[in-house]
C-alpha cells in the first residue's frame, strides 16, 4: 500500500506542472485579473478552515478556525467579485 503522503506529493507535483502550463498561456493584458483571480482561488484555505472551526473539540481550534474562515472568505468573496468587475471592463473594438 502506498502511503498517503506520497499520493499528496504526487498530486502536488502534477498540479504545479499543470499550473505552469495554464498560466504561461495567459496574455499580459489579463495579468491583473489573473492575480486577483488566483487570490480568490488561494482562499480555498476556507475549506481547511471550515473543517477545523466546526469540530467542536476544543475552544482554541474553533477560534482559530473561525478567524481563518473569516480571512479566507474575504479572499474568496472579494477576489471573485473584483475579478469579475475587472473582466467585465475588457472589451473588443466594435466594428
Amino acid at each position, binding site marked *: 500500500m502506498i502511503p498517503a503522503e506520497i499520493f499528496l506529493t504526487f498530486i502536488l507535483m502534477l498540479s504545479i506542472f499543470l499550473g505552469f502550463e495554464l498560466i504561461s498561456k495567459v496574455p499580459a493584458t489579463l495579468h491583473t485579473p489573473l492575480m486577483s483571480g488566483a487570490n*480568490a482561488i488561494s482562499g480555498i484555505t476556507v475549506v481547511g478552515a471550515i473543517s477545523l472551526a466546526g469540530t467542536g473539540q476544543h475552544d482554541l481550534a474553533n477560534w482559530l478556525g473561525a478567524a481563518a474562515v473569516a480571512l479566507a472568505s474575504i479572499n474568496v468573496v472579494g477576489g471573485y*467579485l473584483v475579478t469579475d468587475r475587472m473582466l467585465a471592463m475588457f472589451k473588443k473594438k466594435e466594428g
Partner: protein
Amino acid sequence: MDILIQFAYVVSAALFIYGLKQLGSPATARRGNSISALGMLLAVVAALLDQGIVDFQWIVFGFVIGGAIGGAAARMVQMTAMPEMVALFNGFGGLASLLVGWAAFSPSSETFTLVTIILSILIGGVTFTGSMVAYGKLSEKIDSGAVLFNGQQVVNSLIVLGIVLSAVMFCAGSGGGFWLFLVITLSLVFGVMVVIPIGGADMPVVISLLNSYSGLAACAAGFAVDNNVLIVAGSLVGASGIVLTQIMCKAMNRSLGNVLFSGFGSGKVEESTVEGEIKPITVEDAYYVLEAASNVAIVPGYGMAVAQAQHVVKELTELLEQNGTEVNFGIHPVAGRMPGHMNVLLAEADVPYDQLLEMDDINPRMENVDVAIVIGANDVVNPAARESESSPIYGMPIINVDYARTVFVLKRSMASGFAGIENPLFYKDNTRMLFGDAKDSIGGLIREFN
C-alpha cells in the same frame, strides 16, 4: 458520504483548472472566473457536509464577517488601487493558512503532519506581514523606498537560523507550544524583513512573488489537514505567481535574487553625462503636431495611474481616431505597480484590449509612428537601457519610443524616475517635453481639438 465529498473536491479542482484555462483569452476570461467561483462554491458546500462538523455557528460567524468585508472592498476599490488591494488579499490568504496550520496542531500529530504544519505557518506568516508591508508601500501609507541598514544580512541570517532551529525542535516533538510560538513570531518578523529592502519600482515582482506564496501556504495547509483540493488549488496559485514573477524579472533584465536583496533604487544617483538640451513644447504646438500625425503610439506608465488620466487619454484617442489617425498603446510588462496594471486602467476607460500592444508588438512598428506620447513612464522608455553600458538598467528591454519621428513626454517636472536614473530620452533631438499634470495637459489637447 465521505466518498461523495471527496468526489466533489475532484470536480471542484477540475473547475478551477478549466476556469484558469478560460482565462487565457479576454473573450472567455469572465466566464472562466465564474467557473472557478463555481468550483469554490462546490468545495465549500462539500466541506460543510463533512460529518466531522457538529458546530456551524463558528463557520457562519466567520463567513458572514469575511464575506461582508470582501464584498464591500471589491465593490468600492478604485481601479488605480488594485495593486494594494491584491497585496492586502494576499496577506489575508497567508494569515488564514497560518491559522489553519496552527489549529491543525495537536500534540498527537505525526512528524509528517508537524512538518507540514510548520511550513503552513511559516509561509503563511511571511506572506501575511510581507503583504502588509507591500500594501503600506503601494498605498504610500509608509515610505515606498528601499529600507537598508548596516548588518541587515546578519539580522536576516539570524532570523532564518532561529526559524530553522525552532522548526526542527517543534517537529522533533519536544513540547510543541513554545517552539510553535517562536516559529509564528519569527516568520511574522521575517515577512517584514524581506519586503522592506525592496523599492517601490520593484513592487510588480514582490506582489507576484507574494501571490505565489499565498498559494504555497494554502498548499502546505492542504498537507496539514490532509485535503487534496487545497493542494491542487494552492499549487495552481503558487505556479501562477512564479510565472508572473519570472515575466517581471525578465522584463527588468534582473534576477530574482537581485530584486530581493540589492535594494535597487535606494537613492544612489549616478553622475549625469547626458548631453543636449531639454526642449519644452506648449499644448498648442503639440496639438498642431498631433493634428498632422497619421500614426500615434501612447506609452503609459505609473504616472498615468497617479494622475488618474486614463479617461482623458481615452477621450484624446477618440478625437485622434475621428481625425483619421491610427492610435495604439504600447504596454511595457513592468509599467505600473503590478503585472497588467495599465491594461486594467485603460480597460476601465473603455479602451478596447486589441488596441493595447505588448512591448514586442509595438517596437517593430515604432519607426512608422509619427508621434509617441509617453504619459508618466520613465525607466521603461529610457534608451540608456539599450545604449549605455554603465547604466544600472542596461540590458532591460524597453519600448523604443525614441525611434518614432517625434516623442512627446508628459511629465510633472524634470525629477528622475523611480530608479533615480537620468533619462537621455528627454535630451534627444526628436523629443519634446510637455510639462505639467498629465491629466491637465491632455485636457488641454482635447480642448484644442474641439
